[in-house]
């Protein structure tokens, strides 16, 4: 009879669990309330939009059909709506608003007529929607403007050339372009009409457009100031807390002396060996993503030609960007999945039979999803299919068809099952609040929060699709992937004997508390102007300011960790095998502070975001944070595992060094040579001449901007040739020269270090 094994006690005080649970529950409680408010108080979609004499202009069905046309044709990866999407094309909310305001003013008396200008503002601001009948009445001038703009957009999207970076004749059906115009018209209506009982519009007066009376609101300025105060006060409080309680962070004196095992002495399981293939797939996807990024960027430097070749006939801008953005998530996720599979046997100390076959099955399924979804996006954007399930769903970052989205969610769940198979024996012996369980919980959160993206449906209210989409873009990526990677990095340090499990566990709980305090409600900082009520802006601004605090703090704290690492290294007889993995982690700390912290906060204040959203400053933050933090972390995890997968004589320090320097210098070049200065120029243009002007192709293809775009070329070339290719080489060596499997050595795995102070292995953190 098997007795239930005795569980190891929780290593810290219960207060840590209570604090983490309280902060997380509070965050999700507030987010739940905001979800309810988003459903009840977003801008209405009129059943009928009519002229003053009752003639139908467009219907609810037209608006929603137009939204689906917008999405499936990949226009969210060309231009944007409510500021969200891609940045080569215009923001269609702002574009429709500007064009219709000019047309209305012209019909009311001319551009120079003051009375016409005042009447235009009044007509746009007045809310003539009747909730009881679901009818919106446009003025005759507004209805006339709609007809003129339906013709304009038809001419724009049906043009048989690639002059705008779209495929020739992107949308040729006049009924489709009319529905598309209805969608743009509705978003422009929400952006210009006052909310009932309020003196600002459904979008908090976004976009800035004086022709319809849109300017910054009082709450926008107040919450910008308050979020600044929250940032400064938060940093002060945290510094005080760390001064008061010295045990916080990576502090702690390591009593034990360890010697690192040489990689050649570490025995690998069959599933760990399977990870070599995962990392090769990761590197190939990374290469594809970087090359597509180069192509996307080239459109901005030279719109109509790729060094003399008309690329847009095969790879229009929106397809290149769709693949670039999707692969950014997929290659990073592939690395994290592989790292999870690689670490789990080290955490558990054993591996069940057949695990490697399941890992190969997962890799096969992942490849099917990646290439299947890319084929669907190709077919959708080229107009070969209109299927939402197998074609292009079209939401930025959730572009893949719903079938592939479901399959990917199931694949992630299958990955959790794989981890569970390995970990369950260890979990039975552990307190449910110790590191092995946290490792499992954080893995479980990955499929759970990715699946939330299924709530964003192309035929739903656009504001609500944005609300749920950002649960994936923000909560999934910035909180739960961050949590999982923190767990993995902490476990790597524990497995290497660099820090004790107690210290690592404390850092993990601190991380959960700090990120949850700002990051959960802070999700709403993406939704300032998407049609949600004003409290989404207020709470989003206030709490997301607090997100910068842990970024600042954990960067400072990294020095303490480095000190611990040095002490252990000095005591070890064997050389530390993970120089480049650790340096990639150092670069993660740098980019976390610069890309996520400084560049993120730069665009976070509502008053800045009001003029900036959808400009190169957003790309600047996106590249520095996504590649700088998640990308570098993915490479660090890959190098950590490859160090054991590649035999000593085949390991290339030169390739690792070249990749490290080229990825970091290439990224820094991209950011400082082009994205940041261009973003500042575009912000200046937006504030001084208008948001509409700053998003027009006229501005983006101006000679000065094109020069800045060309300046990015050396950085991109260095990044791809010097950074990604050596990584591909290392990953190829991982597969080609993979260390052999040694089944006969017994079922239990040895740790990655030995204690040299008289004991054989780890005392508290290992099985």
């Amino acid at each position: 009879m098997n007795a239930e094994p005795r569980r190891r006690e929780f290593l810290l005080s219960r207060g840590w669990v209570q604090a983490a649970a309280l902060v997380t529950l509070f965050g999700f409680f507030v987010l739940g309330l905001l979800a309810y408010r988003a459903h009840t108080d977003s801008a209405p979609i009129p059943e009928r939009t009519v002229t003053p004499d009752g003639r139908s202009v467009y219907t609810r069905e037209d608006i929603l059909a137009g939204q689906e046309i917008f999405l499936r044709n990949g226009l969210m990866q060309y231009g944007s709506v409510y500021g969200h999407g891609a940045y080569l094309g215009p923001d269609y909310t702002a574009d429709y608003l500007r064009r219709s305001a000019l047309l209305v003013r012209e019909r009311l008396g001319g551009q120079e007529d003051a009375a016409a200008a005042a009447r235009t503002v009044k007509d746009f601001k007045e809310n003539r929607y009747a909730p009881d009948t679901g009818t919106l009445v446009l003025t005759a001038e507004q209805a006339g403007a709609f007809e003129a703009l339906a013709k304009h957009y038809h001419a724009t999207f049906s043009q048989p050339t690639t002059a705008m970076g779209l495929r020739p004749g992107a949308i040729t059906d006049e009924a489709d372009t009319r529905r598309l115009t209805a969608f743009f018209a509705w978003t422009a209506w929400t952006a210009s009409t006052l909310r009932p009982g309020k003196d600002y519009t459904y979008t908090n007066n976004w976009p800035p457009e004086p022709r319809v009376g849109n300017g910054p609101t009082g709450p926008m300025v107040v919450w910008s100031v308050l979020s600044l105060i929250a940032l400064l006060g938060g940093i002060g409080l945290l510094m005080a807390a760390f001064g008061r309680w010295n045990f916080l962070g990576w502090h702690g004196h390591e009593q034990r002396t360890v010697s690192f095992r040489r990689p050649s002495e570490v025995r690998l399981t069959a599933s760990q060996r399977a990870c070599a293939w995962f990392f090769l797939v990761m590197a190939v996807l990374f290469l594809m993503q970087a090359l597509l990024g180069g192509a996307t960027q080239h459109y901005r430097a030279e719109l109509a030609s790729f060094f003399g070749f008309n690329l847009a006939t095969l790879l229009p801008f929106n397809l290149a960007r769709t693949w670039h953005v999707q692969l950014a998530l997929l290659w990073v996720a592939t690395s994290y999945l592989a790292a999870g599979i690689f670490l789990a046997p080290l955490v558990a100390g054993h591996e069940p039979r057949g695990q490697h076959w399941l890992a190969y099955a997962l890799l096969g399924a992942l490849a099917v999803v990646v290439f299947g979804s890319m084929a669907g996006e190709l077919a959708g954007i080229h107009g070969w299919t209109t299927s939402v399930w197998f074609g292009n769903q079209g939401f930025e970052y959730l572009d893949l068809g719903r079938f592939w989205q479901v399959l990917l969610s199931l694949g992630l769940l299958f990955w959790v099952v794989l981890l569970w198979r390995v970990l369950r024996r260890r979990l039975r012996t552990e307190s449910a609040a110790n590191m092995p369980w946290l490792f499992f919980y954080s893995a479980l959160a990955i499929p759970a929060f990715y699946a939330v993206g299924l709530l964003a449906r192309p035929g739903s209210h656009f504001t609500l699709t944005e609300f749920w989409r950002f649960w994936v873009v923000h909560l999934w990526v910035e909180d739960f992937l961050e949590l999982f990677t923190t767990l993995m990095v902490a476990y790597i340090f524990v497995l290497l004997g660099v820090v004790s499990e107690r210290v690592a566990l404390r850092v993990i709980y601190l991380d959960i508390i700090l990120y949850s305090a700002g990051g959960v409600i802070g999700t709403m900082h993406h939704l300032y102007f998407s049609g949600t009520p004003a409290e989404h802006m207020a709470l989003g601004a206030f709490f997301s300011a607090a997100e910068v605090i842990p970024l600042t703090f954990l960067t400072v704290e990294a020095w303490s960790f480095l000190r611990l690492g040095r002490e252990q290294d000095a005591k070890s007889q064997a050389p530390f095998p993970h120089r480049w993995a650790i340096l990639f982690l150092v670069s993660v700390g740098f980019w976390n502070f610069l890309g996520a912290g400084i560049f993120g906060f730069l665009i976070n204040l509502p008053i800045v975001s009001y003029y900036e959203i959808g400009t190169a400053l957003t790309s600047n933050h996106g590249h520095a944070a996504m590649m700088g933090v998640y990308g570098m972390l993915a490479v660090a995890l890959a190098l950590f595992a490859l160090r054991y997968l590649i035999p000593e004589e085949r390991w290339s320090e030169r390739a690792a060094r070249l990749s490290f320097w080229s990825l970091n210098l290439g990224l820094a070049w991209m950011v400082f040579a082009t994205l940041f200065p261009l973003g500042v120029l575009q912000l200046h243009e937006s504030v001084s001449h208008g948001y509409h002007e700053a998003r027009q192709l006229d501005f983006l293809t101006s000679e000065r901007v094109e020069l800045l775009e060309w300046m990015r070329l050396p950085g991109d070339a260095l990044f791809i040739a010097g950074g990604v290719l050596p990584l591909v080489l290392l990953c190829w060596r991982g597969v080609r020269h993979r260390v052999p499997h040694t089944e006969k050595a017994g079922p239990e795995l040895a740790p990655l270090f030995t204690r040299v102070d008289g004991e054989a292995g780890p005392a508290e953190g290992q099985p």
Partner: protein
Amino acid sequence: MSLHSEVLWGCGYALFLLAVARGLVAMGRKARAEDDSWPRTDVARFHHGLSTLLVLLAGLLVGACAVRHPEGLELGLLGGVSLVVAWVARRTWVERWAEASSRGEG
């Protein structure tokens, strides 16, 4: 007579890059202030590498502005900024060389 706005932008941004470069050097120096061994030496080298890139970029920017606006007043301003670039570059690389020499890296 007024300066071309592009030159003003270019000079301002070049000076900003130089300030960031010096900040990075200071961060690298702080990293190895407590002890001068790995991984802090590599951390300092990382910051130094980034700062070198920014100084190079500032120099390129000033050069590009000089090619595009070879007029009297503009060239005067660009010449002044290029002196600052040269001074920061020298200071950055001399410090790096001195640190490397003191550790016997050559």
